[in-house]
């Protein structure tokens, strides 16, 4: 007898969304013991992610701030099993763990139950080195897993160097303005969530989240763990040390990134795009985007910008909303002449 299946799906947990801040459970699975900086939003998403996922979870953390600063020998903050994985390996780590659980459950060597497999990576591990492995993993529809990219827009653990997800013109230790060149980083930030969604059509859930909207961030994680197959979340995390701002502003900068239209919030579930929060209002014309100046000038990493740099930055953001086929998300433009 031959069997031929299209996708060999395995049931996941059905994690209902938290219906309001007051309904969020008190249990923490990411607690004290980490050594992250004051105002670190990357640590914040670790906490929210673990809380949203709950105890039947394993977390695989690739090298970066959330390894080196986060998880020290004898003082781990993790209340769920956690394992270090190499910088470029978040995709492979999640795939290996999910495969191991699946086969052992099938063979009766392990209790058959849904286990959440989450691998996280920074923007260096996700948008740069680990992109190939994440892409490969996103093509395996029969394994349930989540890859969460916490994005502090630099290699923030190794002295703040530019990554593929750093913003244009940013001052980092690898792109310091000098006497002749004011702008050393000419790259535009990699558009990670759409890259995963568009490039991997069988992925059922891709979203962008921000720690400034914690309830929504947690519910996004819960949905990603419930829809089945590989899923991807991109979280923007303001970084006081790397972005050079007062830690008290972390939360506000997360909001400003959304309200200026620099980092739109949305989810793509089974091919259906849903914008939410202020991003939705921007699309619907109910909210006028704030000038990017409000966001850029609060951060020391853009202190070298002169007026024309700010104007250029603004024009690029305007383009994403005014010219892109799917505003803020898909950088294809209609061929006006052909019409």
């Amino acid at each position, binding site marked *: 007898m031959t069997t031929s299946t299209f996708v060999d799906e395995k049931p996941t947990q059905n994690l209902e969304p938290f219906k309001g801040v007051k309904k969020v459970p008190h249990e923490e699975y990411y607690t004290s013991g980490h050594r992250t900086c004051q105002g670190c939003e990357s640590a914040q998403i670790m906490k929210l992610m673990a809380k949203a996922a709950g*105890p*039947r*979870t*394993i977390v*695989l953390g690739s090298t970066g701030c959330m*390894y*080196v600063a986060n*998880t*020290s*020998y*004898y003082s*781990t903050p*993790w*209340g*769920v*099993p*956690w*394992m*270090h*994985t*190499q910088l*470029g*390996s978040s*995709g*492979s*780590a*999640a*795939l*290996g*763990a999910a*495969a*191991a*659980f*699946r*086969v*052992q459950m*099938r*063979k009766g*060597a*392990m209790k058959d139950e849904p*286990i959440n497999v989450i691998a996280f990576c920074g923007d260096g591990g996700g948008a740069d080195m680990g992109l*190939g*492995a994440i*892409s*490969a993993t996103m093509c*395996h529809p029969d394994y349930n897993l989540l890859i969460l990219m916490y994005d502090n827009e630099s290699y923030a653990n190794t002295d703040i160097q530019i990554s593929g997800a750093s913003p244009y013109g940013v001052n980092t230790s690898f792109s310091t303005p000098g006497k002749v060149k004011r702008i050393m980083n000419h790259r535009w930030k990699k558009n990670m969530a759409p890259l995963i969604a568009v490039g991997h059509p069988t992925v059922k859930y891709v979203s962008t989240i921000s720690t400034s909207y914690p309830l929504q961030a947690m519910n996004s994680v819960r949905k990603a763990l419930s829809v089945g197959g590989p899923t991807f979340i991109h979280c923007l995390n303001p970084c006081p040390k790397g972005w050079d701002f007062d830690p008290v502003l972390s939360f506000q900068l997360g909001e400003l990134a959304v309200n200026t239209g620099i980092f739109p919030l949305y989810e793509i579930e089974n091919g259906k795009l849903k914008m939410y929060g202020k991003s939705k209002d921007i699309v619907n014309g109910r909210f006028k985007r704030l000038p990017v100046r409000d966001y850029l000038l609060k951060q020391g990493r853009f202190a070298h910008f002169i007026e024309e740099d700010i104007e250029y930055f603004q024009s690029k953001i305007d383009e994403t909303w005014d010219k892109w086929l799917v505003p803020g998300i898909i950088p294809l433009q209609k061929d006006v002449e052909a019409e």
Partner: protein
Amino acid sequence: MATLTLPVEEKKKSKINEQEALITGAEAIAIACKLANVDVVTAYPIRPYDTVMQYISQLVADGEMDCEYIVAEGEHSQFEIVKHASVCGARVFCGSSGVGWMYAMEALTVSPALRVPMVCMVGNRALDDPGAFGVEHNDALAVRDLGWLLTWVDSAQEALDTALIAYRVAEDRRIFVPLAISCDGAFLTHSQALVKIPAAELVKKFLPAYNRGDLLLHPDNVISVAPQANEDWVMEIRRQNYKVTEVACDVIREVYAEFEHTFGRKYGNPFFEEYMTEGADVVLLGMGTMSTPVKVAVRKLREEGKKVGFVRLRWFRPFAGPEIAKCLERFKAVGVIDRDFSFGSPDLSGVVATEVRSAMYSSSSTRPPVIGFIGGLGGREITVPDVETMTDIVFRAAKGKAQPLTQWFGLRE
């Protein structure tokens, strides 16, 4: 450790169930994976190892093997996937060749300290550049200092048997480190021979289920694996891997004894095979399939009255130094044939010659001269006339005539 004993009836039954097949070295290892009930296999194409993955793919498609068979997008991911699967309790198999093995180097480096008993096949291949499919041992040897166990086999039968032994050794809680079985590209990976395939029920008895115990990554066992340790603890953690190498020889000896007892096939000394060494004045030493031309030459030379023997090294890590030194000090001179190079090393010799000299220095009182030969690189054949000339050189060294310590063979000048 308790020795496995089987009732007589079961032994008879197992003999009946034993099959014989004409298969390649790669296919032999694929069959061993099936017999070992491997849980997760990751593949990525590179010659010549990749035929093992073609066979496994077919076994899975035919329903003969139940595993997660994942084709990765590169060797780095290939080894990272099985690394994590192993930490989550799965028995795993993986492999590579040449620069593919090097592409996985980061994953290869971290696996021993993570105590991952993955079993891998290396289809030995010359490293680029320039491109060459043929055998060279430098690929597998690149991990020799990192805590891997490394073994070289020279026949399809030995490949199958060693793969079963490998799981038993690697998954022994005293060991718990990755293990690579090296098979010479083409000469073994693609050459067919008659192989006795043991009965599945016997393999099941020989090979207990992989039990990761309190190192298992699972929601029921809340642990943090490999947190940042720095100078506070790294040295102690390295010392744990050192302790593996202290007991590795004993564990390997135990497992070979159990193998012999279970399946009835004898390998004698697990660490090296001696061929016509009795009464020999000099010996040659090497690893892998060079054993075929060397053995032919040794037989020929013996007929001519030249007292030469051959020692084939099976286990390179652990390197059974004292035993090897004790074996070799019986002879007046030793010629080591390296199918590898170690540029800039002492005496500019190959890796094996350097290791043998080092072992002799500390563990032998007589220290016969060790002449290093480098040959067969990139898959070039080591011929019988080559071996005859090498033997003449070793005889001259035995008579006290100074010989160059490293000589290249089969080289066009």
